């Protein structure tokens, strides 16, 4: 699967490279004309794209956005009449080259390529938009030419540009979602849904700069381009604050989870390993981002209830405790977690992870998939003690298999084995 993800990312980057080569060889003279005739637009445009490519926003899910770059690119595509100057009548390939120049500068400053293919996705979407707006003939004129006509109502130009930018942005996010779904082993539908949930408001706000820049350029001149990006800049600032507090929150939970380690109840990093394992298993089972996050938090906090014990369990391995004790510890932990009203769902998972699988089948107790994942992941790490050598792993799996169907959900155990096999293959690739 990882190879498939790498191939998808490579394919995307190859597509971007092809587009660039096509623009270079097919539109070089047009590009030279654009640079020489419109330096006040092309050079600031390159600078804004370069800045945007470096002012990336990393969301809590790991998704990377570049709203300023996307917005600057779309504005360059749509830019038409300019107060006090000639209309920006560049060919589509010239616009692609201007955008790509900004990206290349960013790559040189970063001293490396972005592995996720995000830059390539943006280049491809800008390329498509440029060819649609400036190259596609509609009723004898291109969309770009229609917007120059004084008889075309300005509000119609605004709506048309918003729609075109929307298509370009949708393509960019779709390409990013494809690569992400392959690398995380989720379905494309899940990946797209996560994109919408996490990034939609900011994605939508990136639609505005292109029409704003195009419509105010006839009155404000070349300053229209940076002015139009100001709303996006405000969004980037708010987005960064949100992303930063998300990272700090994770940091806080990790500190909380290390409480039982430092107090001598659990082995060092047990909670972190369990959280990582649950994350991988949840992705395999195609859980959406929100559920994966909740499960990760529950995994980090699942042993909090052990602070109530007078005598710690050896190595904090709750898997070795009696089922009734497991449930008591889980319930205590859940009660502690419920001190934070926003943690109610996490508390429920912590409590439910102590439910044996047979109780779900025979007594119809409620244990959602996330809780069953946590139960298996916790048991595995308790049994291996954090060791990853084949003997320890085999012994742990054997022990878990003995409780298959009774203690543990067989489907979830199968996913655990698949994750372990995948990790093993990644560590020791077959030649």
């Amino acid at each position, binding site marked *: 699967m990882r190879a498939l993800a790498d191939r998808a990312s490579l394919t995307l980057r190859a597509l971007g490279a092809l587009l660039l080569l096509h623009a270079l060889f097919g539109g070089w003279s047009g590009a030279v004309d654009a640079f020489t005739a419109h330096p006040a637009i092309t050079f600031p445009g390159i600078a804004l794209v370069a800045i945007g490519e470096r002012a990336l926003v990393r969301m809590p899910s790991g998704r990377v956005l570049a709203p300023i770059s996307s917005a600057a690119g779309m504005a360059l595509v749509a830019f038409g009449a300019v*107060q*006090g100057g000639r209309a920006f009548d560049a060919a589509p390939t010239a616009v692609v080259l201007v955008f790509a120049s900004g990206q290349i500068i960013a790559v040189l400053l970063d001293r490396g390529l972005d592995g996720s293919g995000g830059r390539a996705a943006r280049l491809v979407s800008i390329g498509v938009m440029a060819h649609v707006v400036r190259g596609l003939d509609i009723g004898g004129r291109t969309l770009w030419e229609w917007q120059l006509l004084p008889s075309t109502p*300005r*509000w119609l130009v*605004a709506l048309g540009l*918003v729609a075109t930018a929307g298509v370009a942005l949708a393509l960019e996010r779709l390409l990013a979602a494809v690569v992400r779904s392959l690398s995380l082993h989720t379905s494309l539908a899940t990946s797209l849904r996560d994109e919408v949930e996490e990034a939609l*408001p*900011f994605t*939508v*706000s990136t*639609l*505005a700069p292109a*029409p*704003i820049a195009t*419509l*105010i350029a*006839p*009155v*404000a*001149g070349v*300053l229209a381009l940076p*002015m*139009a990006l*100001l*709303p996006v800049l*405000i*969004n980037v600032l*708010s*987005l960064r*604050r*949100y992303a930063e*507090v*998300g990272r*700090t*929150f994770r*940091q*806080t*939970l990790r*500190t*909380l989870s290390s*409480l039982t380690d*430092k*107090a*001598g109840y659990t082995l060092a990093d047990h909670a972190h390993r369990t959280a990582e394992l649950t994350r991988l298993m949840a992705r395999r089972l195609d859980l959406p981002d929100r559920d994966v996050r909740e499960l990760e938090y529950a995994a980090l*906090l699942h042993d*909090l209830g052990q*602070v*109530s*014990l*007078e005598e*710690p369990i050896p190595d904090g391995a709750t898997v070795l405790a009696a089922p009734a004790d497991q449930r008591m510890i889980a319930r205590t932990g859940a*009660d*502690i*977690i*419920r*001190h*934070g*009203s*926003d*943690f109610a769902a996490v508390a429920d998972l912590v409590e439910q992870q102590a439910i044996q699988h047979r109780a779900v089948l025979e007594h119809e107790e409620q244990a959602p998939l996330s809780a069953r994942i946590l139960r298996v992941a916790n048991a595995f790490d308790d049994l291996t003690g954090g060791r990853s050598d084949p003997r320890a792993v085999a012994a742990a799996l054997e022990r878990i298999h003995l409780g298959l169907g009774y203690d543990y959900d067989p489907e979830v155990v199968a996913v655990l084995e698949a994750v372990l096999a995948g990790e093993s293959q990644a560590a020791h690739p077959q030649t």
Partner: protein
Amino acid sequence: MRSPAGAGGRDLWALSYVAALCVLCLASFSLALHDEVLPDPATLAVILALALPLWWIGETTLTTGVTISMSSVLTLVASAAVGPVGGGVLGALFGLLARDRMPVIARVFNAALFSLAAQVAGWAYRFLEGSSLPVDLRGVGELMTGLALPLLAADILQALTNALLLSGIVRITEGVSVRMTLSRVLLRSGAISVGYGVLAFLLLVLWFPAGVGPVSALLILVPLWAAHWGYTQYDAQTRTQEQSLDLLVGALETKAPDLCGHSARVSDLAGRAAEHLGLSDGEVLDVRRAARLHDVGRLQHASGRRPRHAERTLVAAELVEGLTFLSGATEVLRSLSAVPGERSAPAQLISGAAALDRAVSREAGAESADEVIAGLQSGGLVSAPIADALLWAAGRSAGRGAR
């Protein structure tokens, strides 16, 4: 405990203040009508229609006390495009029809406040010869002198008026000095106010010189809505992060039931005392957080041995020292572990509040707050200003309890 006469006197002053604002508002309207500074009806109608979705979305008050208000952008636009009367009417409507539940007097105050601030903006814009309905502006120079600069001045004056009038009512009702409230409000919302001005400028340019008309609002309000969404997510995440500290306290109270509620009470008491002492917002927050966490060092010891105070607070500091948002609180915790004579003011506040709470919890009525504080002061555990602040905060808490 507050005397009924004192509280009643404050209410009377507050009522008078609100009434005076309303009179000022109406006087400004009269002046505009007298000078025939009348809004263009069609433009005013469109702006009022645009106000509807903004009213529905409402405002967002962040945990830091900053209010993100998209209606402020539209009010500024109205002040420029349809003059002080138009801006004043819109401001009054936003104030009267706010979606939050509040007493009538608060609603009237908000209406007067927003209306006056908008009218001041409108007058400033006119005074600086800002172009109303600036359809014919062309080029950077004309846009700057005819729109951008007058609008910037109007924006700044709107923010200042809002902050000043707000400081007045806070002085009357809460006793906080005008200067302190003014600086807090301006520090918190100054940058955002400039952002409003930029967005209002873009909206006006799109609407009038560029000829896009009311559809311009869609182009500006969508990014604004996205920023609003981002801030609400940020705020929600920040609240959840604060709640994670409750988990630490919850774990402590599970292990040591005798401490149930102690951290919350100490945090409340120390926080009030810190505010009364005039510490900055950041310092008050550090005090509150450190007070909540000052006993979590007891979690470290599984053996049941009760660690000494200094050891406990040092362990607490070590437990949370990796968390950047708690860096201030961590410093306070470390200071708490120092010898009494070397503790910082925030640390003294917490140790004094903790001692007060323990004395009250041990045996109600055994020692008065005065006696406990006097004991702490004579023992060199708290300085005189800290002692006064703690006594004041204890008195407020007792007053609230008595009601």
